[in-house]
């Protein structure tokens, strides 16, 4: 091997405390080194050219640059090598700036250290091999999981950019939580008026295929080439024929089903379209309530259906889709407030959740927008809102702040006054968290213009008194115990991760936190990316988000997908693990410890089990290399022999000659 060593002065950054010419001179004695020099700025244009010329003139097949951190300029020098016709992986760097010249003033010691770092680099380089990237095609279709506002935004952006989108929605209609909300804060826009058109766009966009009442069963493959299996649940209605006329709903005799869309505050028929603006607007039968499916007799809907699209024999269907990227926008679920026994949550009919209250206020809700008490249908005159139910409460395992409850509570209190002008509203809060454009002004408006009484303190218990409820809490500002009698109590329930989020995360091979929220690749710098290439995140599946953030993330994730799809071929990083099949005994321990599912079991021609690395999935961490007792699986560019060469260069005594 013929190695060239370049010692960079970095102006005086290195040269001030390292004797660069001496290091270059010493390096001449290292094995396989045929050329050494020291330059003022190796990373500069002339510095790089010097490398390129030296490679050509001295027929170098490897280069060591001793300069700043490889985290700074490794890419720069690799490109320089490539320009000279060398493989980029034939470069090693010795960090003599951040790790030497900048942290010590003793020039003699620094010089010794710099030289030793160069010797390690040379020792490793002598064990380097050229590595080549594999190229593979990209399937330019994207899977969007979840049809809430974040998913809708991502899907529309991708579709508008010309890419095929497959959207999978667990519920019967897309729209998510936003479709249930009456008004949005702080503008008090009609929620469904702004979301509705986007939902329609989804249904009508020629690039979007929508699977509602469906779930992702399995995801295999890797970035650019995922194979997705979608389970389309049986609806017992042929949706190709269903016009959404609603005749079946009118005649269905089974009317006692819990209306999930209305958060259980009303009942619905077994065959149902959840709400008038539903997308797709198709009826589906809830098999648990259907007399025909349960008892085998009824079939009224089939008789009245003008298009004869009822099909009691329908079964779940598995559909396979090929996509190149995945956006997870699975949103959140409401915290189960019934844990708070002291609030009578789930027991007292007039202690309801904030989302139930939204449905009560909504003009298209079960009450037509009239706020009434679920117990007796009377209009409440005194409404108490309790904040932080399932938020910031370690005792129920929810130490985090859900972020948006302060704002929607203020909104609901304001709307209450609008709906019932002679009503009084009280809010028990811990802190008012209202960062955001116009948010704080909005909460102040609630207090100052709408006279909402804000009491700072936790509610300790709620108990019925006559047909009203006593809300007992503390007012920490006044330092007293307070009791407020209320006609209706609204619990501002926090957000938690969607049910089955961990299971989905496993399918996507991404990580999730202790609460089941998906982990972003970096919380600050890669907020919509994951550690699995080609899988992106949007909206509240990462943690509670309000609408504008969710929409923004939807677009951000779409932008990431478009960046990915802007290339026709992807290159896999060749710094991945590789199995020496003649050493592998097929114990598959490597596959057990691989965090990315990048190792699969194969059988060779002789029938022996061997491990095989899926290069495009492997991220190059090297956990497998340490796991493998035979040293059969080696992380390229960081093989045992390469690292041992470095250790030996440092520690091994040289033989006397």
């Amino acid at each position, binding site marked *: 091997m013929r190695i060239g060593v370049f010692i960079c002065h970095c102006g005086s950054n290195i040269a001030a405390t390292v004797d660069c010419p001496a290091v270059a001179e010493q390096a001449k004695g290292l094995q396989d080194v045929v050329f050494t020099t020291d330059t003022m700025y190796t990373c500069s244009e002339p510095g790089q050219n010097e490398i390129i010329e030296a490679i050509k003139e001295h027929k170098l097949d490897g280069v060591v640059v001793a300069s700043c951190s490889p985290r700074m300029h490794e890419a720069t020098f690799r490109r320089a090598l490539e320009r000279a016709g060398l493989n980029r992986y034939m470069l090693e760097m010795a960090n003599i700036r*951040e790790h030497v010249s900048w942290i010590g003033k003793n020039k003699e010691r620094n010089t010794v250290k710099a030289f030793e770092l160069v010797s390690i680099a040379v020792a490793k380089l002598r064990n380097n091999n050229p590595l080549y990237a594999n190229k593979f095609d990209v399937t330019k279709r994207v899977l969007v999981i979840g049809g809430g506002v974040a998913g809708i935004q991502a899907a529309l952006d991708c579709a508008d950019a010309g890419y095929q989108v497959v959207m999978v929605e667990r519920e019967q209609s897309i729209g998510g939580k936003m479709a249930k909300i009456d008004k949005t804060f702080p503008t008090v826009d009609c929620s469904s008026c702004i979301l509705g058109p986007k939902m329609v766009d989804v249904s009508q966009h020629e690039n979007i295929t929508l699977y509602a009442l469906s779930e992702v069963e399995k995801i295999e493959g890797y970035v650019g080439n995922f194979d997705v299996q979608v389970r389309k649940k049986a609806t017992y209605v042929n949706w190709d024929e269903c016009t959404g006329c609603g005749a079946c709903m009118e005649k269905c005799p089974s009317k006692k089903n819990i209306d999930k869309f209305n958060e259980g505050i009303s009942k619905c028929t077994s065959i149902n379209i959840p709400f008038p603006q539903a997308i797709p607007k198709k009826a589906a039968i809830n098999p648990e309530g259907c007399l025909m499916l349960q008892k085998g007799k009824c079939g009224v809907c089939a008789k009245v259906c003008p298009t004869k699209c009822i099909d009691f024999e329908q079964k779940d269907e598995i559909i396979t889709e090929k996509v190149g990227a995945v956006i997870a926008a699975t949103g959140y679920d409401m915290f189960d407030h019934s844990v708070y026994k002291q609030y009578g949550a789930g027991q007292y009919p007039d202690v309801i959740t904030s989302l139930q209250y939204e449905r009560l206020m909504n003009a298209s809700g079960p009450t037509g927008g009239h706020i009434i008490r679920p117990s007796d249908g009377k209009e409440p005159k005194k409404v108490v809102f309790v904040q932080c139910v399932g938020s910031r409460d370690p005792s129920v395992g929810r130490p985090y702040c859900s972020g948006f409850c302060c704002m929607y509570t203020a909104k609901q209190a304001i709307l209450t006054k609008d709906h019932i002008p002679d009503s009084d509203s009280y809010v028990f809060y811990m802190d008012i968290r209202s960062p955001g454009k116009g948010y704080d002004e909005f909460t102040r408006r609630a207090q100052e213009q709408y006279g909402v009484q804000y009491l700072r303190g936790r509610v300790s218990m709620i108990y019925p008194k006559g047909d009203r409820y006593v809300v007992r809490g503390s007012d920490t500002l006044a330092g007293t115990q307070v009791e407020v009698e209320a006609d209706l109590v609204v619990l501002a329930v926090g957000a938690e991760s969607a049910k089955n989020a961990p299971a989905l995360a496993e399918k996507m091979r991404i990580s999730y936190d202790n609460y089941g929220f998906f982990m972003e690749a970096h919380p600050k710098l890669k907020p919509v990316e994951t550690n699995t290439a080609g899988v992106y995140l949007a909206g509240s599946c990462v943690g509670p988000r309000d609408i504008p953030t969710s929409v923004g993330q939807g677009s951000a994730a779409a932008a990431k997908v478009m960046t990915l799809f802007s290339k026709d071929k992807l290159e896999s990083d060749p710094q991945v693990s590789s199995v020496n099949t003649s050493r592998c005994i097929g114990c598959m321990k490597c596959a057990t410890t691989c965090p990315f599912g990048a190792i699969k079991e194969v059988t060779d021609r002789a029938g022996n089990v061997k491990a095989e690395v899926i290069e495009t999935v492997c991220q190059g961490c090297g956990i497998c290399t340490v*796991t493998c007792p035979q040293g059969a699986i080696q992380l390229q560019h960081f093989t045992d022999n390469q690292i041992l060469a470095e250790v030996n260069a440092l520690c091994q005594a040289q033989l006397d000659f």
Partner: protein
Amino acid sequence: MSGSTGLLTEGQDLRIVGFLCNWCSYGGADTAGVARFEQPTDLRVIRVPCSGRIDPLFIARALLSGADGVLVSGCHPRDCHYAEGNFYARRRFEMLKQFLSVTGIDPERFHYTWVSASEGQRWQDVVTSFTERIRKLGPATKMAGGTGYDEECLKEIAAAVSLGDQCPCHKEKA
């Protein structure tokens, strides 16, 4: 000691080997450098992608072949660039750490910790205190190489053997 350098005079730097993951700790060491946090010069860093790549046997190899100390650092638990590397690493390192005492190698000569890319200050503290610790322990006793016989004894006898360098078959080839 290491013959790789003729510049090193006795009684100066100790031989401390560092294994640092690329994403956090190597970055942390860079950060310390950028901030000009002064550190002892004894440490020599080997960069690896992840603490999960650091085989405890690398550490053993270094200690057996003459390192006075080995310092290992990765991303803080939960912050691994590869999600799980440092979780595996932590178990592996802990086993080695507790095991070393039975071999007669002072476990104090091996330290593992977690430093993020932003913790330049912390890196300085880690390097400084570890180097001080090794300085206190002094240079490690070296493992003997040799033929399986008592080296000292052989040497003495060999000196007494009359054949010496005059042996006709002992010739050097250029």
